[in-house]
Structure formats: structure tokens, C-alpha cells
């Protein structure tokens, strides 16, 4: 008797939980799962003549992500253009992450070690770019490094160079732009990790015969690591899918995945390929997220 009333209670409890969760589930289904399904379905259809899709099953979209067929004899080969863009996207995103790490961690350290009152000011400086349109920010960077931009004019004026250094539309330009745009995403989580760090622990380490370096390695870094990882993820993932910055800084020459996808839905008129590329990007992001949860989740479980 007691058993079954307990079961009843449990069933009722489960039902109530589902009921409570249902609005959230509905929203997730409507705005996240359904659109994703549309993309998955489109990736298995044939391209329409003027964009859109033909409702005919085809694996051509997925095939074209990595391969291409010769126009004349139909021989299959790896698609150099796509591979280049894919690797460029991954490599540039990793490089952006590394650059923002090198710039962001010392910056965060600097801010976190200021007196309490000054920190708000420095954080404000870091966040101001956020309030500015991405396009405007990127064009500002372009203004700095283009051939008759600020940098080149100063160098010419000082007589340090004879002709402008061509920087726009190179991987370098892309990196400068992306590092600038994504830097705050690195600084903020690292800052909050350092700010939460209890510097009396560093003092304890120093008291226990640790050199500054040993203290940094064994005490400070392990404790601010979650912030560093979060910052890296926050920079890496949007870098992978970056669209505006590569478009402006890389032009048509240094394309990234985001631009390639946009091209398929625009002038390329190959929606299935665009959908397949989008899913490839999503898969890359997922890999990064799984790696992230391994790094942090494993740590917190041991904690």
C-alpha cells in the first residue's frame, strides 16, 4: 500500500516537473530545434535554380563540402578552395584565441590588481567597444592599417618606410581585426576569475618557499584556469563563425567559413551546400564545447 502511494507521488511529481518545464521546452523546440531541422533537411536536397531548394534527395551538398567534380571528366578530387577556407578558419580562430590570451590575461591581471575604485573605470574602457556597432569597430581597425591609413601615414611621415605596407586583405589584417573585436570576451571572464582569486593564497605559497614563478604555476594558474578556458571558448567559437570582420579585413581573398556559407546562400545559389557547411561549422563548435566541458567539468567533479 505504502509502496504504491509513494509511486503515485513520484509520478505526480514527474508530471509537475514536465508541466513546469514545458514553456521552456516549447521555446527551445520552436526557435532552436526546428530551425536546425530545417537546415539538416535542406542539406539533403538539390539546389534550386535561383536559390532555394528542389524537393529532391541529394547528397551533393554534403559531398561538396570537401570534394569537387571536374567539370569536364567528372573525376572527384578534394576541394582545395573549401579545404583552404576550412583550415584557415580553424587556424585563424586558434591564432585569435592565442593572441587574445596573450593580450587579455595580462590586461585582466592589471585591472584585477588595481584598487577597487579604479577597477570600474578600467572595465568601462574594456566594455565601451561593446556598445559600438561591430561594423563601425571593424572599419575603424581598417582605417588604422589600410594603405593610406593612420599607421602607414605615420611611418611614411617619419621616413621609416618609403612606400605603404600592404596589410589589408591578408591573414594578418584578419587577425588584427578579430583579435581587436574579440579581446573583451577574453578579458572579462579572466578578470572575474582573477578578481575572485584570494591573493592571500599566493602569499601563503610565497611564505612556503615558492618562488614567484612556482606560485604562479601551482597556485594562481590552477585557480584562474576556469576563467581562461571560458575566455578561450568565448573567443574561439564566434571566431570560427565570424562573418563581418573577415569580410571587411580579408575582402574576397582571405575568406572564412562564415563568408563561404553566406556566399552559398547569396550569389552561389547553392543552399544545400550552405546548409551542409553550416552544419559542419556547428559540428566544429560542438567539438570545442565538448573539449571545454571535459576540461572544466572533469575539474569540478574532482573538486
Amino acid at each position, binding site marked *: 500500500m505504502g509502496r504504491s502511494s509513494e509511486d503515485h507521488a513520484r509520478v505526480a511529481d514527474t508530471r509537475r516537473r514536465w508541466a513546469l518545464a514545458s514553456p521552456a521546452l516549447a521555446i527551445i523546440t520552436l526557435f532552436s530545434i526546428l530551425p536546425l531541422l530545417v537546415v539538416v533537411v535542406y542539406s539533403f536536397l538539390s539546389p534550386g535554380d535561383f536559390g532555394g531548394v528542389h524537393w529532391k534527395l541529394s547528397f551533393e551538398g554534403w559531398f561538396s563540402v570537401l570534394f569537387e567534380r571536374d567539370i569536364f571528366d567528372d573525376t572527384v578530387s578534394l576541394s582545395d578552395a573549401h579545404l583552404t577556407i576550412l583550415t584557415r578558419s580553424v587556424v585563424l580562430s586558434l591564432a585569435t584565441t592565442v593572441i587574445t590570451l596573450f593580450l587579455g590575461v595580462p590586461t585582466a591581471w592589471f585591472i584585477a590588481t588595481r584598487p577597487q575604485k579604479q577597477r570600474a573605470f578600467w572595465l568601462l574602457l574594456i566594455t565601451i567597444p561593446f556598445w559600438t556597432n561591430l561594423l563601425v569597430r571593424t572599419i575603424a581597425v581598417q582605417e588604422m592599417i589600410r594603405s593610406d591609413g593612420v599607421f602607414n601615414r605615420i611611418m611614411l611621415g617619419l621616413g621609416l618606410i618609403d612606400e605603404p605596407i600592404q596589410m589589408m586583405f591578408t591573414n594578418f589584417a584578419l587577425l588584427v581585426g578579430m583579435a581587436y573585436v574579440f579581446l573583451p570576451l577574453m578579458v572579462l571572464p579572466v578578470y572575474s576569475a582573477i578578481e575572485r582569486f584570494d591573493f592571500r593564497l599566493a602569499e601563503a605559497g610565497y611564505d*612556503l*618557499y615558492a618562488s614567484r614563478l612556482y606560485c604562479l604555476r*601551482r597556485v594562481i594558474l590552477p585557480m584562474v584556469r576556469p576563467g581562461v578556458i571560458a575566455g578561450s571558448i568565448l573567443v574561439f567559437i564566434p571566431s570560427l563563425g565570424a562573418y563581418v570582420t573577415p569580410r571587411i579585413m580579408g575582402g574576397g581573398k582571405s575568406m572564412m567559413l562564415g563568408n563561404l556559407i553566406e556566399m552559398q546562400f547569396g550569389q552561389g545559389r547553392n543552399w544545400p551546400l550552405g546548409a551542409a557547411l553550416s552544419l559542419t561549422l556547428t559540428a566544429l563548435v560542438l567539438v570545442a564545447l565538448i573539449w571545454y566541458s571535459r576540461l572544466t567539468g572533469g575539474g569540478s567533479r574532482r573538486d
Partner: protein
Amino acid sequence: MLDIRNLSKRFGRGESAVTALHEVSFSIKEGEFFTLLGPSGCGKTTLLRMIAGFEPPSGGALVLDGQDIAHTPPNRRPVNTVFQNYALFPHMTVAENVGFALGALGKRQAEIDETVGRMLDLVQLGHLAHRKSGELSGGQQQRVALARALAPKPRILLLDEPLSALDMKLRKEMQVELKRLQRETGLTFIFVTHDQEEALTMSDRIAVMSGGRFQQIAEPRDLYDQPANRFVAGFIGETNFLDGRCEGGQLILPEAEAPVPAAHDDGPVTVMVRPERVVLGAAQPGALVLQAKVEQLVYFGTDTHVHMALANGNTLVARVQNADQSDAACREGETIPVSLPGGALRLLPQEAA
């Protein structure tokens, strides 16, 4: 072994400068349990942090085993600290915490493991070696902090109010434990507290501090029986203060019936007498006899505190053992004679209180 000479510390510059420590000098002997005792803000932590190396002194010398270490960084001083908040590394296990210093010194793992095992046995925490330090109770964290600071065999162990975060019962246990550890290891301890009872029960010598100055350095018994000044007398234990005057070898108290002989220079004095030395009832030879009105009896179990008012409005407290005297000795509202035996009186120079 540790000589501190004219050590001083100022924080800040110009107008806003705070002098936390005014030229203090003292020596600590090998194996001593030395306590810094004083009210909040008197500079105990500042002095300890200077010995540890976290604060550079503004002046003076800090000589350990014949070497001036005033400007040696903390990681090169053979001195370790048990911090008030313990400051255990939360991402490490108990064993890793205890072995930290040895790792930093580049010792071999086998040696580290051996020492860590020994230290954990010493503080009776062997069974918790692989717990994360955040998963321990306050008392356990305290022991880990102790073991961690003891593991590298420092010349001096500094303890900044290590027991203040513990509850009363645990605190008493840890006092005994600390004393045992100190005896077993033969280490020199410099212990900071603002709890006078803790200082009296544990220390070999106590330095009473106030306002960045040393008021007195003495053994607990001497500090209690022969305080150097009114501050020390008031800070250690409970005390009655009465204002009097010395004239020609006689102590004259306005409230008393007759003067008693006193070996003191002529002039105004403060008379100090501990409550447990006050005797209810009259006529002991050589005692000051006063008339006092009993205002309140406060029962404490083993003893009763008798609060009395003197003729001129001053108060006097007596402590009577409940084993010796029955409650019938006095009643609230009664006026009774009270004796202050000559041997119980201590004369201090009068200060503007």
C-alpha cells in the same frame, strides 16, 4: 635566536601616514612559546607580517641566528606562517597542501611523501590525506594549516590568531593540541591573540601591545601579579583601580579608615587590586579597610562576583569562592566592611585615565 631591534613600520606618506609600530625591540629564545597580545589594531599582525617578510620594515633590524633578514623575501626566510583564515590551497588535497613547501624546495617525491605522512600523523589527520581541503571542518583545516607550516621544519612558526575562527570547545582542545605540538617539536612559536586567557594558559612569555608599542614583556604569572602599568593591569584579567596618595611611607586612600605602610615615592598613585584578593569582612592586620554597599551579586557557579559601591561612588568588585563562603556572607543592599590585604595591593604611577 631572533633579535628585533628598533623595528618600526609606517603605512602611507605625509599627512595620511599611519605608524603601526613604534620602534619595538625584543629577543626570542630558541624553543620559546612567545605571544603577542593586544587589542584590535595595536599592530600584532603588522609585526608578524614583518617577521614573515610580507611587509618591509620602515626602520630597524630583524636578526635571525646572527643574520639581518629585514629585507629577505618570505620564500627565503626559514619562517612559516599559520594564517588566520588558514589559506589552504582549495584545488589541492590535504597531502598536496602539506607537501607544498617541500615541492617548492625541490625535494624528491619519496621524501615529500614520507614527511607528509609524518606531519599528518602528528596532527592526527592521516585518514584524510586525499580529501580536498575545502571538504574539511574548521578544526581539520586548522590542523592541515599547522601541518603545512611545520612540514618544512621552519626555525620559527608564526601563528596569527589561529584559533579565533573556532568555537569555544574546539578552541580549548586546539589550545592543548598546539601546546603539545610545540613541546613535541621543540619549535619556536610566535603566537598572536587578543584573548588574554589564551595567552596566559599557553605562553612562556607574553608581550602586551597597545597602540603600536610594547607595554610589557613578561611571563604570564608576572604579568598578572606585577603589571607594569594601568593598561596591562586592565587588559590582563579583571582589576579594581582606586586612586590614592603616598606620603612618608604611608598609603592613604580617601575611602579607607586608616592608612597602611607602603614602600613608594610620595605622590598620587593608582592602587590596583584583583577581585579574588578582596576579602569581605573587616580587621585583618595590615589591610586597608573600607565600607562598601553591596549592589549586586552575580553568580558564576564556582564563584560569585560581588559588585559594591564605595562612599565616593567608586565601584569595587570582589570574587568569592562559593566553596569557602556561604551566600549569607552578604546581601544586596547591605553595607559591609571590606579588607584589601597589604600584599594584594599593587601601586602604579597615576596616569590620565
